């Protein structure tokens, strides 16, 4: 058997993480997809504040207010994301659901160290999706919990030197 005939790519294991990419106002954000329990349209949610699905209550979470963002949540693309991290649940309204994406771990980056305040708890890191900068939400914070380990593991800040040519595509 010749080596030339082997397809090396099929044997390569690439560690990826799945995210639901959403838009909230002008910001693009990502939620780890394993916590998504459903995406509902405006017609499906009506005016209810808390949603119930599969026996679980999902209290409404005003993420835009918590992030001090201006977001129009009255448009036709508005969706309610039912989210759970296993012990906490929440219904998060977003301006738009952009899509699901499998992102290689190496394409996830920590927030630069210059961001020093609460935002370090809000976001687990960031990634590039379709050439856009996307902030990875910390689900524990988003669901109202105290600072906890984010579901997404990103590298320690000192391991990354963001603004170099090796930053995107480099080890994470």
């Amino acid at each position: 058997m010749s080596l030339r005939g082997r397809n090396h790519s099929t044997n390569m294991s690439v560690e990826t993480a799945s995210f639901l990419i959403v838009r909230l106002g002008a910001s693009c954000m990502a939620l780890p997809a394993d916590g998504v329990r459903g995406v509902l349209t405006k017609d499906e949610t009506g005016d209810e504040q808390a949603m119930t699905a599969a026996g679980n209550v999902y209290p409404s979470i005003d993420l835009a207010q918590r992030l001090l963002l201006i977001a129009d949540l009255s448009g036709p693309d508005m969706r309610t994301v039912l989210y759970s991290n296993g012990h906490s649940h929440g219904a998060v309204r977003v301006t738009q659901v952009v899509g699901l994406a499998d992102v290689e771990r190496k394409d996830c980056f920590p927030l630069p160290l210059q961001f020093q305040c609460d935002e370090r708890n809000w976001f687990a890191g960031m990634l590039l999706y379709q050439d856009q900068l996307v902030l990875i939400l910390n689900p524990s914070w988003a669901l109202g919990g105290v600072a906890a380990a984010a579901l997404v593991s990103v590298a320690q800040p000192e391991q990354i030197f963001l603004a170099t040519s090796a930053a995107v595509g480099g080890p994470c």
Partner: protein
Amino acid sequence: MLRAAHGQQQAQVTKRSWNMLFFSVGGIKLAARTEDVGGISPWVPSIPVPSRTPFVQAMLKRDNLVMPVYDLATRLNCQPLGEPLLCLTARHLDGPMAICIDAEVPTLETVDAAAIRQTGRGDIETLGSITIGGNDVAIVALQRLGQIRQDVARH
């Protein structure tokens, strides 16, 4: 022995002069050590990031390079002037950082170290100041910009 003496001599020569970059933000003349500057490029629209860190509330993306933006103009209570605006990449201790500066093209100059006074503006991190054309010009400490807590100026 001779080599060590030569090294000391060189260090003394280096300390005698500073290579400086002169630029302006909102018409305010500022200076920075050239070694603290990563480059000057055209400004591109920044991406807002929800943040409570004073003056760090956006990111700049150019191709595959992503870096935080330091809003020096807001800190100095002014607006960058001219078109097209420029981006100064600061070699900050925490990593590269983008600063929007005036459209006026920065200039390079070698300054006698003796002309640098150790007093600077109290409102931003400086390495001192220098008099240029009768005006005091602050030498911005780009490496540690943002380290003085600006509680009063918090947004």
